[in-house]
């Protein structure tokens, strides 16, 4: 993504979208058994609600570790595209990982951040993004050049499409509303992990 390209550079320029809707749009574009690692809370629940895929991993605790887990999968399987699905609060907890991912220039990795400027699942307390912390700018500052806000749904889909074919690492941030998740993940960690490993072809 060149600096000259016209893109929204401030979250304020972008449309407030809906997490469930964007997650369905994201999942609909996955045609090559891409791995998706869902963070905790609503990103995870909406990933579950968008349709069970064997290549989805649903994290149940360990807030902030969706991106590191996705990075690990990406390192182990360089031929597969891997997506970390995070919220603003979760990403803020583990910002250092952006620097690690940038340092490694992990080509097959994208981080999708659903930013509603709050810790929605714990009672809608405001996060730092409500006061000006800019996730896409933070990622660029960490060295992830292909980091952008999605202007609207069509732009989100275009960015996802590019992240699935062009070298990363990518960070795609989307401003979202405060609507609840469309479902709730079944919390059986051993089964989640086993299905994921079979989905990745690691277990037969």
């Amino acid at each position, binding site marked *: 993504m060149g600096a000259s390209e016209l893109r929204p550079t401030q979250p304020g320029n972008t449309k407030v979208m809906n997490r469930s809707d964007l997650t369905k749009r994201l999942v609909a574009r996955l045609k090559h058994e891409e791995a998706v690692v869902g963070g905790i809370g609503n990103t995870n629940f909406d990933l579950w609600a968008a349709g069970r895929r064997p290549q989805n991993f649903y994290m149940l605790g*360990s807030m902030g570790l969706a991106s590191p887990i996705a990075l690990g999968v990406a390192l182990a399987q360089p031929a597969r595209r891997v997506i970390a699905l995070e919220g603003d609060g979760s990403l803020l907890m583990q910002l250092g990982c952006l620097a*690690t991912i940038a340092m490694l220039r992990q080509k097959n990795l994208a981080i999708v951040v659903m930013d509603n400027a709050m810790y929605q699942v714990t009672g809608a307390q405001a996060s730092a993004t409500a006061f000006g912390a800019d996730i896409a700018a933070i990622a660029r500052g960490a060295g992830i050049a292909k980091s952008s806000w999605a202007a609207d749904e069509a732009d989100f889909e275009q960015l996802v499409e590019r992240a699935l074919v062009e070298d990363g690492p990518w960070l795609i941030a989307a401003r979202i509303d405060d609507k609840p998740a469309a479902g709730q993940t079944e919390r059986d960690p051993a089964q989640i992990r086993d299905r994921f490993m079979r989905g*990745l072809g690691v277990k037969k």
Partner: protein
Amino acid sequence: MSTVGEEGRVGPPWHAIVHETLKRNQVRLVTYVPDRVLTPLIASVHADAFFTAIPATREEEAAGIVAGAWMGGMRGVVLMQTSGFGTLPNAVASLALPFQIPLLMIVSERGTLGEFNLGQALVCRVMRPVLDALAIESHTLQRLDEVEFVIDRTIKQAFATQAPAALILSPLLTGGKVFTA
């Protein structure tokens, strides 16, 4: 660098044994938060193309990377010092243990046998009780002649049983970090 064994033979130092034992067990991914004592091991894995060696910004992050890599079919280990282990309990208790992920940890032990920093000493008091509370297999390595056996068997058990394991490198083995001011 080499050390003299009990029979007076010159043998490889602890870090060379760890390096070779990881390699023999196909542990390719080494994530770490740096530590003075671990420096020769970190340098040697970086110098060996067999390994993918990655500095992480936090031990939790390193644990997440290793967890994801294992699910993707690549074995890994996290290297840290005692204080780093102190940041890990949530990642171990909410990720590695419930998901049955063999998180292999190698901890350079600070806080004992000549520690000069009280902050390190107190974390050291916490580490083993936490490992025991989580029912994690752990061994403290003090003798050079036991390093290969203990590490080899611990790695094999961790991956066979899909359980985390911790190997603590005592200053009795490594010399530790010495106060020189």
